[in-house]
């Protein structure tokens, strides 16, 4: 590919070579940072843009695997002490190889982009959607109560199933996804690998049970009914008989 060369008269601190970095930013459509080339502000902007670039997936613009693992690690440590309920979804496009084989890789890319966009539009702004492999995505949902999990996951699945992907010259192609999910163990320090493995196991189950479905790890948290809570928090009028 052709890139305009960086200005030759760039007044950079001695020994600093930024040609490739700037070429990379231009290729990503980020353009030249403003300000005085070589100044601390200017360098900081270059670095910030490189960081942003290296945490995104090039095809979809979603978080990439590196960014995802970083976010997941933070979430594991946070929920261990806060006890908050957090959900991890693993998403895989069903029969993706068939799409590639039938319509070609360019079509495959469009399908991946469409699914990524559908995921992004179905979750909350605070949730992290990442592309972590070829046709595999992951969604981290902090502060997601276990009672909402099935609904949230199925909304994602339905959204993809109901939105055929338009391929140029080929028309609409139906796409479905399988979703596996697991909640972070509350109050227990876990690891990203273990959490991913638990969600992956559910994804595997969704695949083997026929695809285009959601499987979540059953929650171990005992259910306290609304009736029990009502009585527990009711204004006290009884006599303590102890």
């Amino acid at each position: 590919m052709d890139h305009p060369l960086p200005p030759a008269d760039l007044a950079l601190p001695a020994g600093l070579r930024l040609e490739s970095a700037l070429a990379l930013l231009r290729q990503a459509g980020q353009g030249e940072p403003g300000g005085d080339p070589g100044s601390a502000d200017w360098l900081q902007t270059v670095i910030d843009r490189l960081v942003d670039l290296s945490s995104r997936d090039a095809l979809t613009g979603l978080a990439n695997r590196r960014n995802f693992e970083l976010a997941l690690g933070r979430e594991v440590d946070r929920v261990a002490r806060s006890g908050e309920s957090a959900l991890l979804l693993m998403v895989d496009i069903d029969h993706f190889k068939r799409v590639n084989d039938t319509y070609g890789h360019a079509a495959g890319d469009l399908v991946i982009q469409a699914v990524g966009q559908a995921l992004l539009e179905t979750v909350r702004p605070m949730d992290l959607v990442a592309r972590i492999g070829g046709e595999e995505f992951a969604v981290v949902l902090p502060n997601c109560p276990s009672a909402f999990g099935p609904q949230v996951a199925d909304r994602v699945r339905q959204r993809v199933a109901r939105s055929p992907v338009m391929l140029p010259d080929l028309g609409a192609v139906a796409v479905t996804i399988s979703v596996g999910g697991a909640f972070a163990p509350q109050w227990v320090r876990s690891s990203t690998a273990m959490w991913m493995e638990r969600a992956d196991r559910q994804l595997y189950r969704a695949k083997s049970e026929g695809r285009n479905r959601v499987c979540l790890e059953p929650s171990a948290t005992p259910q306290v009914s609304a009736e029990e809570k009502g009585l527990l928090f009711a204004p006290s009028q009884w006599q303590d008989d102890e």
Partner: protein
Amino acid sequence: MTDTAKPGPNAARTARITAVTSGKGGVGKTFVAANLAAALARRGDRVLVLDADLGLANLDVVLNLYPKLTLHDVFTGRVPLDDAILPAPGGLSVLLAGSGMLEYSRMTPEMGGKLQEVIDKLRPRFDHVLLDTGAGISDVVLFTISLADEVLVVATPEPTSLADAYATVKVLAATQPSRPMHLLVNQTQRRGEGRTVRAQLQQVLDKFVNSTLATPLRLRLLGEVPQDAAVRDAVQRRLLLLEMLPGCEAAKAMLAVAAQFAGEAG
């Protein structure tokens, strides 16, 4: 667990094993375990606190210890148990979990056997062994509690703590019935709030849980510990409250709790 192999609570030179648990985290469970242990030690008893919060151990933080040897080393067979029993401030002994114990969100039979073995070895050597469990109701927490003779539930009057304490008691009642269950209400705002909280919990237990049990479950109130700025101060300075400010309201309350605890047969 069956009780057949267990010696009676009053058997000579046999430790009373108490699991300290809470449902919700951050309600002062480790603070209570450490200071209750210190208060019991002050009465002349031999006390050990075992940090059974295997994934999020922080007894070492509360007591300002930098353990070289931990339960993890005992479990992996690197050192004998004796080497990992450490003296701690307040005249107590501790067995720390250390931070090497990630991933114990699930109980393996192997780990269960090792924990059981450790507790069996501690029994003849102490008067009291407090098991500081993790928060929540994971397999590890439930198993740890099953190794104890009795349970001490720490809760605050705050609604989420109350709900989580209730959930814990409910699960224990269903899975491990017929065991003395004590309640300590921490961070109370007014005198008598502990009694209120106990009665509130008991009322819901009576209505929703006790009808399903052969022996109805009765929560015993061990005491209440008032909200006290000195507690935060002690935790931040990583000192035992009983050592730092033995005359403050919360410390006096902990001593009263210990007296009540020691006075009960268990």
